[in-house]
């Protein structure tokens, strides 16, 4: 995995990196078993390796296609854009990184939000995209999530959140940290209105996103192999000099330690969310 400048707090990394070819593994090569696929094969299999079950990352748009009933997703707040409140400049200006991310992903920021139906049930839907600056959360992600909570409360529908994030976006400084309580209070208000939140954690969901809205679902689902630690494995290893367990921070470990209600294969995610929408329907 290449380094992502949007990441904060953690060094997200695969625990089992593929053998790089020409110094860099092809995105369609399975890092678990080395099988290689055409784009259409991977799309067909929901980006799950048919050989070994490895869950590749999927972008927000594709995730929505996998999850929502065809033609039901209506995006909201598409126009929101990050600004550069601090005039942040490291080796490159933040504004340049933003522009580049928008061009490479076609997204305005690291979250796509809207309304959808899943298995015939209306819901709010927010999906993060790790491709946009490591899925980092700045003011736009926080605002989109908070508005999605408000819409869900208004609509009387559950909110389904699919997270994929390296944490808060440090280029927005302390305001990025403030997106943690911002999303948290939004969920509190949603809950008080009688609403519900189904939280899906995908690889990776770490740091500020794990420490806020992703952990506050009424039900928490995770995809197999998803890293879901607050601090990343590299930081933990460096700070503590402890030997990390092989499944450090992965969904399977988190499930054992009581943090996840269910680990759900991607092919089962839509029926599982559909079932939960039926259960949380207060019609």
């Amino acid at each position, binding site marked *: 995995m290449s380094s992502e400048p949007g*990441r*904060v707090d953690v060094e997200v990394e695969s625990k089992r990196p593929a053998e790089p070819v020409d110094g860099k593994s092809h995105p369609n090569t399975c890092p678990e078993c080395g099988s290689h696929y055409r784009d259409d094969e991977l799309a067909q299999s929901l980006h799950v390796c048919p050989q070994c079950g490895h869950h590749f990352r999927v972008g927000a748009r594709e995730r929505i296609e996998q999850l929502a009933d065809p033609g039901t997703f209506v995006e909201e707040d598409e126009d929101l854009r990050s600004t550069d*409140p601090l005039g942040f400049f490291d080796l490159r200006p933040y504004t340049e990184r933003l522009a580049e991310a928008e061009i490479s992903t076609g997204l305005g920021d690291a979250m796509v939000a809207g309304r959808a139906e899943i298995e015939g049930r209306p819901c709010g839907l927010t999906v993060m995209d790790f491709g946009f600056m490591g899925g980092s959360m700045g003011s736009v992600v926080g605002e989109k999530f908070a508005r999605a909570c408000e819409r869900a409360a208004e609509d009387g529908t559950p909110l389904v959140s699919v997270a994929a994030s390296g944490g808060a976006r*440090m280029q927005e400084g302390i305001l990025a940290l403030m997106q943690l309580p911002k999303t948290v209070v939004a969920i509190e208000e949603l809950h008080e209105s009688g609403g519900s939140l189904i939280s899906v954690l995908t690889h990776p969901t770490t740091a500020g996103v794990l420490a806020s809205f992703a952990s506050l679902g009424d039900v928490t689902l995770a995809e197999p192999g998803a890293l879901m630690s607050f601090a990343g494995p590299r930081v933990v290893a460096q700070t503590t000099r402890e030997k990390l367990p092989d499944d*450090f921070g992965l969904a399977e470990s988190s499930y054992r330690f009581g943090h996840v209600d269910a680990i759900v294969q991607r092919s089962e995610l839509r029926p599982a969310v559909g079932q939960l929408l039926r259960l949380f329907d207060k019609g």
Partner: protein
Amino acid sequence: MRLRERLSKLGGMKLLRGTKLTGELERLQDQLDRLREEPSAEEIWKSVELARHPDRPYTLDYVERILDDFFELHGDRSRVDDRAIVTGLGKLDGRTVVLVGQQKGRDLKERTDRNFGMPYPEGYAKAMRAMALADRHGFPLVTMIDTPGAYPGVAAEQHGQGGAIARSQAAMARLSIPTVACVIGEGGSGGAIAIAVADRVLMQEHAIYSVISPEGCAAILWRDASEARKAAAAFKPDAAHCLELGVVDAIVPEPEDGAHADPDEAAELLKAGILEALGEIDALEADERRRRRREKYRVMGVLASA
């Protein structure tokens, strides 16, 4: 150009908040004067150093100076007493309050014992227990934030560090009581915000409050942890910037040369700040106070439309 003005030109939502300063009048004037100019990179780094100064007063140094009849409460009622977090009951000017604060250690032994002020998830569980006690009895909650961050260890992760930080924020968002958070040293990221979701957030003049440590930011963006000064200058963890961005509600002045130079005076100033903050929120109905608290966080951030 001052940050505030620049922000107002960025368009998008108007998300700026408090500019209130607390403390003695002359200091206040100094502070206002100084705030006319944005802190320089050098001034920011000075705050980073003062915030981490080995002699800087820690939570218990303030507790013994500010609270009477302090009774420390221990344990998470499940596994452990996380000593990186101190909880207790005390009298503030004759009124019972609940105190929750991160606690660093002064010497090597205490540092280890306090885990350098870095809580495990159990520390946040302990904090939430104290919050529930306060809420049950209508005691105001005062928190003191001074941590490099939540502890990044294997067991801490296994015990749910991320979830604990999220739930502690949610607990603070629900409280009916008046709440005042004081950033007294290092306000380190998720580990800090876990106990900082309050009606009023005070920040000492030379405390820092940030989304990541300068070293961590430098390591990622500059690929060189020694570029921490540059990183700090870029993400601006100083009190003036936090006030400008509406992240804290007031700056509490420190003695000349920093809080460690005169802990008694620093404590007096902090106490005055807490009492003033409590005075502002005391009279509100619980529901209204909570509504405003949530609204404050709801609007934090700066953004634009495409």
